[in-house]
């Protein structure tokens, strides 16, 4: 199932990337937003503080001389107004005055002490320039530094706030986001897997069905519900399998028919072969009277004739395989007069009245095969009349409506109803003994039927035992 894995992995990677990027984006955005609001908050406080300090200092300057120490207390006092993690640092010239929010004390600390005490900043770390700075090394710290005002340029106020709670909040949020991201990714991958599997399940069905067909189970089909491409493919597959099944069955049937024909043929030929060889042997090794010898020779000649019939019909049938398709427009009239000539003499000798009437000039078909067709039927008619006194054979060829019709009728012994169905089957004989004596091969009518069918025609027979038989052939003229 490599396809579904590919589809899956591809989609999964994209989705996961997307999800995680999204989550990261949100996380980053949130962070920046939070930081920004902290900054703004500090800034706001700073501004207020700065203005106040500025005002106070201006006030104080009027009254007393401001010095560092005083300034320090001043700063400390301010610090106490802020949150615990805020430190105010005043820088006068080069001296630093630190005010801590956490511990506004009355104690007198020297500046250096104060610096030493609050060791969480280093002088060098203090912003050299004015502005808002964010340090993210250990703890997130905001520094805001600015000159007090234009009148006191040697005073700089630096506000430092360590965002402990911010850091804390963030420390909790971050893993949360991470876990959330992972769970989301897993959830997505699972859901995706299911979705892909479900969608592509029909492919499994198709594969299984195709395998069945390959293993010669021709009736295998798929049942894919829905309307989508896979369902369409399923329908098409079923149609294909149906066609395969039909054709295979047809071929099997044809092959079986051929086999039956061959089997029957072998049987039919074996018998005359046995007889001919047998009688020849018998004559060789026995002392026979002249009369007996003649009897044996009669048998040999008759059986040989039978063999010839079978052989020639077979040849014609084989020829037909080649001729099939060789259609031309030929003169029916000429063909008929030729056939008439052929048969007139022998029928005259047998006292059979023979009449052939052809009203159609031309025909589109295979001349050789049509000739075989007519001759077979006429010969059969002749055989049916072998007992008759006043035998009659009529052949009529004419057009009726949209078809070309041929009729061959005789007033011979006729065929019983129960046999009419089967006379077109190879080797079917109504009366074996008789037809063999008369030289029938059993293949004449099946051959005729084949010829008629290859010309897109139909052949039918009507018969009345003792009265006669009529064969009707009808070709549709295109």
């Amino acid at each position, binding site marked *: 199932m490599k396809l579904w894995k590919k589809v899956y992995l591809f989609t999964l990677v994209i989705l996961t990337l997307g999800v995680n990027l999204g989550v990261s984006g949100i996380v980053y955005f949130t962070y920046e937003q939070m930081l920004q609001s902290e900054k703004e908050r500090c800034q706001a406080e700073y501004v207020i503080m700065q203005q106040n300090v500025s005002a106070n200092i201006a006030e104080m300057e009027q009254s007393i001389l401001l010095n560092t120490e005083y300034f320090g207390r001043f700063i400390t006092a301010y610090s106490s107004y802020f949150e615990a993690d805020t430190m105010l640092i005043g820088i006068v010239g080069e001296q630093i005055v630190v005010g801590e929010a956490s511990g506004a004390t009355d104690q007198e600390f020297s500046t250096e002490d104060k610096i030493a005490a609050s060791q969480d900043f280093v002088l060098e770390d203090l912003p050299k320039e004015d502005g808002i700075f964010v340090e993210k090394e250990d703890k997130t710290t905001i520094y805001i530094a600015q000159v007090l005002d234009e009148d006191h340029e040697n005073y700089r106020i630096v506000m430092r706030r360590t965002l402990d709670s911010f850091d804390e909040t963030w420390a909790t949020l971050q893993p949360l986001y991470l876990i959330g991201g992972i769970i989301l990714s897993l959830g997505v991958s699972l859901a995706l897997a299911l979705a892909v599997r479900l969608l592509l399940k029909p492919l499994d069905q198709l594969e299984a069905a195709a395998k069945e067909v390959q293993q010669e189970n021709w009736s295998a089909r798929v049942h894919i519900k829905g309307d989508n491409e896979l369902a369409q493919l399923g329908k098409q597959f079923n149609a294909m399998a149906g066609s395969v099944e039909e054709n295979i069955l047809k071929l099997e049937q044809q092959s079986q028919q051929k086999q039956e024909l061959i089997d029957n043929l072998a049987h039919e030929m074996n018998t005359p072969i046995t007889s001919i060889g*047998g*009688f020849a042997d*018998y004559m060789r090794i026995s002392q026979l009277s002249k009369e007996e010898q003649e009897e044996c020779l009669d048998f040999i000649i008759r059986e040989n004739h039978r063999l010839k019939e079978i052989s020639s019909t077979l040849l014609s049938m084989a020829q037909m395989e080649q001729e099939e398709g060789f259609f031309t427009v030929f003169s029916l009239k000429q063909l008929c007069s030729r056939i008439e000539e052929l048969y007139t003499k022998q029928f005259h000798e047998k006292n059979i009245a023979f009449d052939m009437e052809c009203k159609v000039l031309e025909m589109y078909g295979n001349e050789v095969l049509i000739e075989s067709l007519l001759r077979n039927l006429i010969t059969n008619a002749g055989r049916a009349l072998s007992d008759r006194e006043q035998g009659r054979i009529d052949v009529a060829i004419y057009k009726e409506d949209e078809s070309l019709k041929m009729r061959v009728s005789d007033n011979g012994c006729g065929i019983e109803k129960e046999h009419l169905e089967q006379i077109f089957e190879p080797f079917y004989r109504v009366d074996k003994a008789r037809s063999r004596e008369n030289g029938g091969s059993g293949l004449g009518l099946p051959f005729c039927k084949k010829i008629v069918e290859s010309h897109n025609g139909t052949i039918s027979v009507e018969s009345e035992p003792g009265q006669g038989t009529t064969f009707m052939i009808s070709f549709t003229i295109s």
Partner: protein
Amino acid sequence: MAHILVVEDDLAIRELVKRNLQMVGHTCCCVADGKGLTELVDREKFDLIILDVMLPGLSGFELIQELQDIPVIFVTAKGALEDKLKGLALGAEDYIVKPFEVLELIARVGVVLKRYGRNEALVQIEDIEIDLKQHRVTKGGADVNLTPQEFRLLEVLIQNKNLALSRDQLLNLAWDYDYEGETKTVDVHIRKLRQKLGLENYIKTVSKFGYRLELKSGEEYETLEKGVPVYASYLNLRG
């Protein structure tokens, strides 16, 4: 000899089999299908039935079921293994496939008859008595000493009486299959038989072909009490 029924729908084959069987001394009755078979079999006592499988109406395979105690040989064009097996399983003694040689049929008929003890056991030619069961030959009452091979040759000639057999055929029928000698031995043995039994008038040479044992039933001669057919040369008949 035996009374054999031939059931075969093809006229030529029927005639062929009948004439050959008659030539070797059997009597035949022929029918073209299985109609009234049971009645016929009850009426006439047959020693053997030769039965075609593909018959109009009931097939040979179906008919054999009603012929339980008479040996049956199937003769047919259906030569597939399954058909043979079926035929034999239904109780037939043998199964011959067309096309076949008539000599083969005769030989197989002989084998089956022997199996059922219905073949010729005793044959008498003038004053020679041949006991095929005991492998004894007497002439004028006295034992004649024949080698096994000579006896075998004599037996083959009797079984195929009136049919000319080529030297090769005699070799095949009377000698073991791995005999690699020439047909000269046939001539030698024939000479011996003629000499020892005085059968010059009966064992005839067929020029350029082989030999034939001519035995025609003599109506003028009575059969012995044992029901043994007596043969006499037609020369003797005239005289």
